């Protein structure tokens, strides 16, 4: 029972966060593959995936050796900072204060940087390899943090890796099928959900580190998820109200 209570939200958080990041990384790889050749795109991608796998293999078991209380407190604080950052940004987007992320705009922007007169380069192109490597590494770092943080503290590293891998496989399959930026993914809703989950985890782990008596024990994570979701809904309502009272025009989609 306890394992499923820990593993279920961990798998969900790892899956949803990874899905968002894989979609963003896929857009960059697609732009590199289209304009600098698939050899460069795949070389950069594989190199970045190799670095990320080393980080997970080294980071996860190393964290599990630290004293549990200190580990829970420090990981809990990092999860709070990471999760509440996503929650704030997704709430501002949902409230219409900042523009939604637009994968087709990202693809167009990357394409503009990568496009050169002439044909696609058949051999390895350093600029293409580096762009794919940087894109996959940076987006992947967020996935690695979530997998290690959510997995190591609750001793659910394997379920977290499973959730992230499943997301990666689905994005790759969809990418091969459509060969276009995955613009229909409700990215902001996913980011809001992940922000809520990670904030709830962070709060729970810090409370555990401080020996707080959580009502209902591990089940209180579900209550925390509801509380953070409620606060996000209140924040969205407040920002929408403020926007409509100022009669501001809708925000245009953005790259960041």
């Amino acid at each position, binding site marked *: 029972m306890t394992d499923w209570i820990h593993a279920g939200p961990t798998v969900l958080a790892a899956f949803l966060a990874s899905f968002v990041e894989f979609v963003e990384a896929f857009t960059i790889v697609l732009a590199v593959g289209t304009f600098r050749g698939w050899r460069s795109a795949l070389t950069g991608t594989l190199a970045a995936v190799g670095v990320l796998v080393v980080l997970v293999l080294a980071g996860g078991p190393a964290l599990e050796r630290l004293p549990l209380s200190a580990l829970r407190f420090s990981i809990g604080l990092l999860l709070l900072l990471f999760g509440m950052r996503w929650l704030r940004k997704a709430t501002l987007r949902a409230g219409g204060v*900042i523009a939604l992320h637009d994968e087709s705009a990202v693809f167009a922007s990357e394409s503009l940087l990568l496009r050169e007169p002439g044909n696609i380069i058949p051999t390895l192109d350093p600029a293409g390899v580096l762009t794919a490597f940087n894109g996959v590494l940076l987006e992947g770092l967020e996935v690695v943090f979530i997998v290690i943080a959510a997995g190591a503290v609750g001793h659910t590293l394997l379920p977290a890796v499973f959730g992230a891998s499943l997301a990666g496989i689905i994005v790759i399959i969809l990418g091969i099928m459509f060969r276009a930026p995955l613009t229909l993914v409700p990215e902001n809703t996913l980011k809001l959900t992940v922000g809520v989950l990670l904030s709830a985890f962070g709060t729970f782990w*810090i409370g555990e580190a401080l020996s*707080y008596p959580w009502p209902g024990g591990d089940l209180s994570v579900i209550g925390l998820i509801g509380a953070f979701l409620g606060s996000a809904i209140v924040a969205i309502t407040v920002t929408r109200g403020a926007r409509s009272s100022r009669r501001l025009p809708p925000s245009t989609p953005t790259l960041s």
Partner: protein
Amino acid sequence: MSVLGRAMRSAIHEILALFIDDGLYAFAIVTWVTFIALITPRLRLPITYETPVFTVGLLAIVVLGVRHAAHRIMTRGQ
């Protein structure tokens, strides 16, 4: 600065950016957690109050942080 130095600086900046994009918001979170961890045990609150006080403080930071950022962005945009 050497190429390695620039790469290290860029990597540190990217890792910090995973956790902080609004300094005031991050400062509020860290300050509240520090206050809860260091100060509240000395206040000798009834044990049943500690969990709700900690959680409500974080929820308030979410709402106030979003409200503050929205106000700042909308004021700048006008």
